[in-house]
């Protein structure tokens, strides 16, 4: 016989003002199975919890119902209290008589009546609650970092530092990401390569870190603590273990007209290439789209000049399968395509460039060896116009709705660097707002204005027109002067919005993580769990979660690492016990449940059954992996025989609630 305790909370006057809590407690006290029914001022307070605990002990309760605020508020509080008093925490049910009763109704009589009904439903349910124990599942002590930019590198270093193995999967031939392409960093103006490349080297030398460059994740199975990941190692036609990175092949390669993606296509590279001097791993890669040998079978120069015989034209893509306990996503960002912004004439004039292109133009390792020259005629530009918010802060139909966050600061940096190096150059920055929240950020921007005399104009460029004399007419408004300007510029630099990498969405599908409408990964909680995804064991690092500058990226990378380390430290993890389970005696093995399971938690086994008539029968039956199941219940409805049921929300429990409500 059940012995159920009912506890009705006043929540001060929050509940008691509209619900007659005494009547509720009294009425529910008469329900079959209820042995004690009490009301109290604040049930969640320590003394309130003690009241519950004492009652559990005194009346030897088999289940409790708390009529209080939403279970989303305090279900855990009361579960813990029950556990402390020796009652299984899953024998607790909450009747939500605050958010879903007292706060929305005004009449005491009807609100009280409803509170009683909600209480009855909870009692009906708790009658059928079963004590549940959380299962455990082992943790593979190894992490996977997807993306080898600064976020991925930092995360990997931190995890390795803590003593765990970690693999970095990078789709490009080298790690380094966007930061490797950047010239200087704000607000300190130190050289990006100087601070990044030592970290890249550190990562390559750390024996706990395996860098899988030129590789992509193709399949993810499993669950927190136990992911099985398939990684495609793309053929680079060079044996990584043999290549010394001497670069001779790249020099001798006759095919030299390949747009150099590292320099944003502003110059060319050879078909066999090393992206940049400090690349890690420093290994050549053959671009099959341009290599004459691979395309026509005629050439083979690189193979001839390679002294270690590292060239292998017959190399194939390779699939590697690895097990990981945690996965950190660090897929980063890209500037958006500017094709649809005709008014800025990007694509019409080579002298209209994006900010990232400007980084390369100014970089010592860039196409011009660090001298800022116009791409069109390699002359020195005297007037440069910067346009902010290109594609950011737009209506959905016009671009990205969000602020790309980093543009204000890097534009100030660019303006300052140009004015510093070429004081004869006039620099105009058209802005809508200058956003500089961050340590030393506003000071940095003020320096650009005050010390370097960069012309900041509040207003927007309306039209950019390349002229026949090679100049560029920039038509813009100056909102403060209330006039329209025409600037005869030599170069225009567009601060293109940034967006998540295109590989992020298919990856999210593989990882069963959520994304927002802009394809940024969604964090488990926007405030309290910013570096975890809602899917257990998947963490978020860097700009894949939202626009970030380098310090923020590194901070989040370390935070994600800390969360991953927290997981890897455990030998096993506790699973949610409210999971599906299949009654094998009723299961038909029809596979309906497996098809609707979003987590692949259901597998089938052929199992021998001893039939009541003493014969043996082998039947295919479903089996749920409780560590993988997240408890959605999709399978329970797909199952025609009703063999599949859900702990904590069983068919009979929900129907008991329905019955109680409809009584």
């Amino acid at each position, binding site marked *: 016989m059940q012995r159920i305790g009912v506890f009705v909370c006043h929540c001060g006057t929050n509940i008691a003002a509209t619900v007659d809590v005494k009547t509720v407690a009294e009425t529910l006290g008469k329900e079959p199975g209820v042995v004690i029914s009490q009301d109290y001022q604040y049930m969640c307070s320590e003394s309130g919890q003690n009241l519950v605990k004492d009652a559990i002990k005194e009346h030897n309760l088999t289940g409790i119902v708390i009529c209080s605020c939403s279970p989303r508020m305090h279900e855990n509080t009361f579960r813990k209290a029950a556990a402390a008093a020796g009652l299984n925490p899953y024998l607790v049910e909450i009747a939500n008589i605050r958010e879903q009763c007292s706060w929305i109704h005004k009449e005491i009589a009807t609100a009280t009546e409803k509170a009683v009904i909600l209480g009855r439903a909870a009692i009906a349910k708790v009658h059928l609650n079963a004590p549940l124990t959380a299962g455990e599942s082992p943790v593979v002590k190894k992490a996977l970092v997807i993306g080898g930019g600064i976020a991925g590198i930092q995360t990997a270093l931190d995890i390795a530092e803590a003593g765990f193995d970690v693999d970095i999967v990078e789709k490009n031939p080298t790690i380094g990401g966007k930061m490797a392409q950047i010239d200087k960093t704000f607000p300190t103006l130190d050289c990006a390569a100087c601070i990044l490349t030592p970290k890249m080297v550190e990562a390559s030398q750390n024996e706990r870190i395996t860098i899988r460059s030129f590789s992509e994740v193709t399949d993810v199975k499993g669950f927190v603590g136990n992911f099985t990941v398939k990684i495609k190692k793309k053929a680079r036609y060079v044996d990584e273990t043999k290549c010394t990175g001497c670069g001779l092949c790249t020099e001798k390669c006759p095919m030299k007209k390949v747009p150099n993606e590292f320099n944003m296509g502003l110059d060319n590279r050879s078909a066999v290439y090393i992206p940049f001097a400090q690349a890690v791993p420093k290994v050549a890669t053959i671009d099959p789209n341009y290599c004459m040998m691979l395309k026509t079978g005629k050439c083979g120069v690189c193979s001839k000049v390679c002294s270690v015989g590292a060239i292998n034209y017959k190399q194939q893509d390779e699939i590697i399968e690895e097990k990981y306990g945690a996965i950190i996503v660090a897929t980063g960002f890209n500037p958006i395509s500017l094709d649809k912004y005709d008014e800025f004439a990007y694509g019409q004039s080579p002298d209209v460039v994006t900010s990232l292109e400007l980084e390369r133009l100014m970089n010592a390792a860039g196409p011009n060896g660090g001298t800022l020259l116009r791409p069109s005629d390699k002359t020195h530009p005297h007037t440069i116009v910067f346009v902010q918010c290109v594609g950011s802060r737009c209506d959905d139909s016009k671009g990205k709705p969000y602020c790309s966050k980093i543009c204000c600061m890097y534009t100030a940096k660019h303006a300052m660097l140009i004015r510093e190096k070429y004081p004869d150059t006039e620099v105009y920055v058209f802005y809508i707002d200058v956003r500089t929240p961050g340590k030393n950020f506003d000071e940095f921007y003020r320096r650009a204005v005050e010390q370097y005399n960069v012309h900041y104009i509040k207003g927007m460029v309306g039209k950019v027109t390349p002229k026949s004399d090679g100049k560029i007419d920039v038509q813009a408004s100056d909102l403060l002067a209330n006039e329209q300007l025409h600037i005869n510029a030599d170069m225009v630099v567009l601060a293109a919005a940034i967006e998540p990498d295109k590989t992020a969405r298919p990856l999210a599908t593989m990882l069963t993580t959520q994304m927002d409408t802009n394809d940024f990964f969604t964090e488990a909680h926007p405030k309290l769990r910013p570096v975890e995804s809602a899917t257990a064991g998947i963490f978020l690092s860097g700009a894949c979660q939202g626009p970030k500058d380098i310090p923020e990226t590194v901070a989040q990378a370390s935070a994600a690492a800390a969360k991953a380390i927290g997981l890897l430290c455990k030998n096993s993890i506790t699973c949610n016990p409210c999971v599906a389970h299949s009654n094998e*005696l*009723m*299961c*038909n*093995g*029809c*596979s*309906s449940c497996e*098809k*609707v399971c979003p987590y692949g938690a259901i597998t*089938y086994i052929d199992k021998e059954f001893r039939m009541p008539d003493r014969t043996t*029968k082998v*039947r*295919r039956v479903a089996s749920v992996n409780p560590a993988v199941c997240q408890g959605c219940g999709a399978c329970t409805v*797909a199952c*025609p*025989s*009703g*063999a599949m049921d859900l702990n904590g929300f069983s*068919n*009979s429990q929900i*129907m008991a609630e329905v019955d109680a409500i409809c009584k």
Partner: protein
Amino acid sequence: MQEAMINKAKQLLADGTVSRVIGWKRGEFAYDITPAVFETAEELEKDFVFDDFTSANVSKYLVKESKKEGKVLVFLKPCDTYSLNQLTKEHRVDRDNIYVVGIPGGPKLDIEKIKAKGITGITSVKNDNFTLKIETLYGEETMPFYEAVLDKCASCKSKKHVTYDELIGEDGDTLESNRFDMVEQLENMTSQERYDFWRSELSKCIRCNACRNVCPACTCENCVFDNPASGIDNKAPADSFEENMFHIIRAFHVAGRCTDCGECSRVCPQHIPLHLLNRKFIKDINSLYGEYQAGADTTSRAPLTDYTADDCEASIVHERGVE
């Protein structure tokens, strides 16, 4: 045809390909044919029958039979092959243990339609150039063949065998059928008219479970309606609600899995047009989620275990149809 089938079965028994044959066994009268398992040539010779009344879909017996020792030969009409495919897809039969011989389909006859004409004391029924010559204790009667055709055959959807190891006779094609006409007719009625129609039909239900037990999609180890733990078990329709409940849930459980073999309506002793419920689901699935024929193959995803991000909303039910 019967001769050819018996010979084929005897041959396959003799050469050891199969150890049993599922077919139809002659009864006491012209029409009372029972599905049966034959193990010897003698049994086949004596009782095996294939005629205008061998309408039963024997594929469901394979759930049991295919798991026994030795391969089983089964004669399947085109419509029955869809059922077998669906069972194969749901791992309810061991296809490797089945030897399917495809045989031509109907149209088969419905003895109830003959009896409904007031014809009684039937001793033999012969098809003479599409006129039925019916011998009775009270003299000979005739009626047009097509007036006695089973409803399920009258709206045949396919003459094509979707799975077989061997065919006797030619294979046919899927047909343009009028099978949704009645569903559409009902859809065009007012809500009240539909309600009245179904109340008068479903109130006849005696919960004999013949529809469920004959259905090749209803092969649950333990049906929810027989399982007291399911919370919805019941044995007799004690209230009009329970008549509705049973038929709605049963139709829902076979939705996307029902091949429209028509057995449910054929066996209903009360002549409730149960197939209309299944066809309603099939029609909805076809129109909302794209044409889908359960049992046409063994790999496709069933509509209810599948989705697309731009599926219609449930409110579509409110938006269409007459009131």
